[in-house]
Each structure stands twice: as structure tokens, then as C-alpha cells.
């Protein structure tokens, strides 16, 4: 679950990481008031979850309250990176001397939290990483022992920092690690970490991604509909289903991420186009009813293609849900299905008897049939 910048900065403030003075607003009038209250030149930042908002025009500067109101009015309600902007963070404009980069994420290979930092922060950090990887300092943190001050200092020195800057950076990094651990983050990132003209170090941005699989114990965070690209994806997630809308016309229902991706690959291979990604494997197989419902909501869908080869997802249970959905929702589109795995005999029996569906012998046959029906 991605946090908005203003939410991340609240966590930072609570733990003592310096952030700019700022106020979150939802209207142009409030943006003007916030600018007046801050009493300085301000920056007005659209609160969206995707990166790249700066280049897309989602950040504006304002020297007066009037300018702040205007800038806010221009951004609010606009579409940025497929998100509708409804919240703005109005912040004091920093006098930026230099921009650093600092992140903690997870190194799957070393199985440890990984600190990445660079003296060359800002919007071009990915280019820095590609062109001059030696300018990215990396430190793996032993998970049980945790981040100790000496290791945080070492990062500071490796960035070429000294004196008060090294101390301020060390302090921020130690606190950022506590945010990372305490909130079950998969990513915390400050870009840029600004050194101001008067030598202070301030987190000018805040990215905090809570690992979705830890939300059960991170009870301060609820992943509501605003965190999804659209309402259907949100609803899918509530049923435990992974759903992504795509451009084609073959409605896909599959168990397991790997098989689902393979089915999409095969559809493309045979010249068709999938209407969606939809995975209902794992412990959520009972939700095959909801899966069918979601796919049928999409008006682009011309053919429904079901592929399962379940392990924990038992074919018989899946088929019960599907049969129920077909009986109740009465889809007009043709349905192609290949249902295999644990309980496959009973599953075929259910589909045949209850809804007259004759499953295909394997995935590729099913895909070829669906592509043909969809006009591919």
C-alpha cells in the first residue's frame, strides 16, 4: 500500500525526520489560506501515488496567496498519471543547495534491508544509477541486529558528507530505518533529501510503501478505494482477487499468477488480445463467483476464457462457484474453459451437468478456441 506524500511526511515528523512546514488541502481557497499561514513562497504538490508528477505538471510554485489559489485551482481535479488530483500539499519553498537520494528497500538476494543513497539525488537519479552506478552507495543491514549508528555514519562518509551534514544524515537514516521496520515497509524513499542554503537537511519528498501482506498487523493503515486505479480493482482486491484491466476483448479467469501470465502470453502468441488480468488462485478459490462477476462487468469482453490447473485451488470448488455465477448472471458471451488439477473429475461433472459446459483438454486448445471466437 503506497502512502501519499503527506501521509509519509506525517510518519517522518512523528519520528523526528525534518520535513518542510506544510499543510494538506483539498480546495483552491484552502491552498491560498495555507500559503498565507506559511508566510513564505510555497510549492503546491499534487498528492498522487504514481511517480513522475513533477514532469507531468503536478508541482507548481507560488509567490503569493493569489498565485497559490490559482495554481491549486489548475491542478485540483485534473488527471495526472491516470489519477484524479483531489489533495494538495502546500509547503514552504526550500532554498535548495544540493539534493541527495536516500532509500531503504528489500534485497531479495541478500535477504536483508538494503540502504541505497547517493549524493546525486533528484529527478535524474535513475540515470545516475545507469550511467555511474558507483555513485549509488549500497549497504545491506543485518536483519536481526538492525541498523547501528556506525553503519549509518559509514553511508554518510561514503557519500562524501562531513561535519554537521554527516551527523544530520546519520540521524535521518537511523530514523528512516525505524520507519521501515516499524511500519512493515517494502520501500521508504526520500528523493530529494535536500541540503538547504543554510546547511539544514530536509526530506522534501516522502515515499512509504507498506507491504500489503503486512496490513493485517499495520492496523493504522487501511487500503481504501483511492489506492486502486479504479473501483473494479478495489472490489477485486476485497475478494482477494488480482485484477488489472487491459485493452483487449478476451475475458480471462485463471488460478495462479504464473498460469495467468502464461495464458496472456499464449493469447498474444496466437494473435488475440486479453481484456484483463484476473488471478483467483491460492486461498481465494472460493471466490470464483466474484471473479466471473468482475469479468462480466467489462463491456469489452467478447469471449470468456477460464483456465485452472489448481493445487490448493481445488477444481471442484472452483467449478461450483463458476456454475453458480453462470446460472445467476447468465452471460451472453461464449465460455471456453480448461479446468484441471485437484478434483478435476468432479469439476468437469459439475460444469457439464449444471451449466452444460464441456471443458477443453488443455490450456493451449482453450486459448486457440477463445482467440478464434474473439475474432483474432
Amino acid at each position, binding site marked *: 500500500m503506497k502512502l501519499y506524500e503527506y501521509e509519509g511526511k506525517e510518519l517522518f515528523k512523528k519520528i523526528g525526520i525534518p520535513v518542510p512546514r506544510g499543510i494538506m488541502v483539498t480546495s483552491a481557497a484552502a491552498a491560498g489560506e495555507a500559503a498565507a499561514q506559511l508566510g513564505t513562497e510555497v510549492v503546491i504538490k499534487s498528492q498522487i501515488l504514481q511517480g513522475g508528477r513533477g514532469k507531468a505538471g503536478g508541482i507548481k510554485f507560488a509567490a503569493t496567496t493569489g498565485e497559490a489559489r490559482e495554481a491549486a485551482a489548475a491542478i485540483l481535479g485534473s488527471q495526472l498519471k491516470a489519477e484524479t488530483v483531489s489533495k494538495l500539499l502546500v509547503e514552504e519553498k526550500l532554498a535548495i543547495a544540493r539534493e541527495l537520494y536516500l*532509500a531503504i528497500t528489500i534485497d*531479495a538476494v541478500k535477504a536483508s534491508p538494503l540502504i541505497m543513497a547517493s549524493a546525486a539525488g533528484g529527478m535524474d537519479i535513475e540515470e545516475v544509477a545507469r550511467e555511474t552506478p558507483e555513485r549509488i552507495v549500497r549497504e545491506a543491514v543485518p536483519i536481526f541486529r538492525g541498523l547501528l549508528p556506525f553503519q549509518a555514519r559509514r553511508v554518510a562518509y561514503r557519500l562524501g558528507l562531513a561535519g554537521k551534514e554527516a551527523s544530520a544524515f546519520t540521524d535521518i537514516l537511523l530514523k528512516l530505518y525505524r520507519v521501515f521496520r516499524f511500519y512493515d515497509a517494502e520501500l521508504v524513499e526520500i528523493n530529494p533529501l535536500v541540503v538547504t542554503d543554510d546547511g539544514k537537511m530536509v526530506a522534501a519528498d516522502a515515499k512509504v510503501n507498506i507491504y500489503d501482506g503486512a496490513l493485517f*498487523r499495520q492496523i493504522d493503515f487501511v487500503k481504501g478505494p483511492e489506492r486502486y486505479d479504479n473501483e473494479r480493482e478495489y472490489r477485486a482486491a476485497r475478494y482477494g482477487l488480482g485484477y488489472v484491466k487491459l485493452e483487449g476483448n478476451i475475458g480471462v479467469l485463471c488460478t*495462479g499468477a504464473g498460469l495467468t*501470465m502464461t495464458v496472456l502470453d499464449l493469447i498474444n502468441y496466437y494473435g488475440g488480445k486479453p481484456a484483463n488480468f484476473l488471478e483467483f488462485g491460492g486461498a481465494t478459490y472460493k471466490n470464483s463467483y466474484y471473479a466471473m462477476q468482475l469479468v462480466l462487468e467489462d463491456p469489452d469482453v467478447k469471449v470468456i476464457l477460464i483456465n485452472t490447473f489448481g493445487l490448493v485451488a481445488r477444481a471442484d470448488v472452483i467449478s461450483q462457484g463458476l456454475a453458480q455465477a453462470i446460472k445467476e448472471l447468465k452471460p451472453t458471451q461464449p465460455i471456453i474453459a480448461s479446468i484441471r488439477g485437484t478434483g478435476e473429475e468432479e469439476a468437469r461433472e459439475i460444469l457439464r451437468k449444471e451449466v452444460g459446459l464441456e471443458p477443453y483438454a488443455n490450456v493451449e486448445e482453450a486459448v486457440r478456441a477463445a482467440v478464434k471466437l474473439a475474432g483474432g
Partner: protein
Amino acid sequence: MGILLSKETRVVVQGITGNEGTFWTERMLAAGTNIAGGVTPGKGGTQVHGVPVYNTVQEVVEKHGAEASVIFVPPPFAKDATFEALEAGLKLIVLLVDGLPVQDALEVRTYAREVGAYVIGPNNPGMATIGEAMLGFIPVWLSYVYQPGNIGVIARSGSLINEVCSHIVAAGMGISTCIGLGGDPVPGTTLTEVLALFQQDEHTQGVVIIGEVGGSMEEDAADFMKVGGFTKPAVAFIAGRSAPPGKKMGHAGAIMTLGRGSVQSKESALSAAGVKIAQRPSEVGRLLKDIV
């Protein structure tokens, strides 16, 4: 025959009295698995399908001896259960749980390495040495999918294990051990580690790698092959060529992967290491026949 798991391996089933634990215990017993005991805290003294239930893993080890565990407990308790098994000295843990917090996964993998044990998973379908024993959800009783043989199978995604294995069997070959590493960001055991085990297993003549977009396990495995760590014939199928792009993790994601992680990068790395690449699952059998 195969790696890590045989019909001799004595197994603890953690979470045996839950719905899933009970259902799959029956299947595992039917598959030949040598289940020494089950564990559910507070349910010690009962039985499940004839398997005695204890309060702690340590009790099973003391009373019956055990080398492995398969864990059917929900996410909030999964780390604890895994540490219990590792601390009791078990060297193979199949951690099926879907939804383990990633930082718990870091601790699990780190501790497993410290004590020299293999944790398979989390978020995986389990593993089986065909004809001997099964831990997890692998439907080894589907005879058109699973036949004993000398091909090792390693999958990141569980759902493709059945599909690919059915093509191996259709091609007239069989499987030694198949292992699902799991789809989570931090697997307890990596592709490279399993390849090292298959390299040592005389019974295994070749392997099939079922990879997918994301991460760098396939590229790391290719590096391992290039330095001679794995030299047997291998076929790979990598899923996800047309997957919707993942939601980007700030700049950090891009900095960390730096060009690794795509299907193309994985296929070309493996290909350069001498692995035959299947474009579709159905090609696996033919490619395998050519080289084993």
C-alpha cells in the same frame, strides 16, 4: 531419489488440526509421506487421520524423530511456526502460507541460513519427490501430470507446475523432485540453491526451470551455471512476456534491478548459460527430449 525429501523423511505437520491442515494431511499420507506427528498448540493429545498431535514441534522430535515440517498456519503465526521448526533442528521446512509479511520473510530466510536449513516458500504449492512423498498441495495422484523419473522441476509460480509437468509426462519422461519456490518477493530458498542440490543428485538427469517476470533469480541462476555450479541439461519457460507492468517502487525499484527482471533479460541470460528456452509450456517436453 530426488532431493531433500524421500519416503524416509519424517515430517511434522504444523497447523494439522485446521481445515487445510486436516484436508491435505490425508492427501500427503496417501502420497506416501512419512508423517511423524502433527502440531497445534493446545490440541496436544488428539489425533488427525491417525497422526498423533502435540503442542510443540520439539515434542514430535523427541518422541518420534523428524527431519522436515510442512506448515499450514495463517500469516500472523507463520514466522513463529517456522522459527519453532528451525529451532527444533528440522532442516526442511515447507512454508505454504500466502501473505507472510516480507520482513518476516527476511528473518525466516536469515535464520534458516544461520542454521543450515532449507525453507521452501512462502506462498508456494509445496514440493514432492514423485512416488515417494509430498509436502503441500501437489496433486501427485494425477497420473497424466506426475510420473516418477529423472527430471527435476523448479517453479516460482505454483500454478505452472501442473501445466509444465503434464507436458514432461506427455513426452514420455518423468519427474524426480518438483519444488515450488513461491511467488513472494523474498523466497526462503532460491533457484540457484535448488540447482546446486539437483547437481549433486545422481538420479536427476536434467531440470526444467519455470520462471517468471520480476526479480533476478533466473539471472542469478544463469551466473551460477556460467561458473560451473550447475552443468546438467536444462530447459526453461519464463512467463509474463505480456504481463501488465508492475507498479513501480519509487526510483528504488529501478535502481536496484538495473536491467534485470524482464522476460527477455532472463531468457537471454539463461540461453547464454546453455539453457534451452521454451516459448510455450507445450514445447518443454520436446526440448527436454532433445537434450536428456
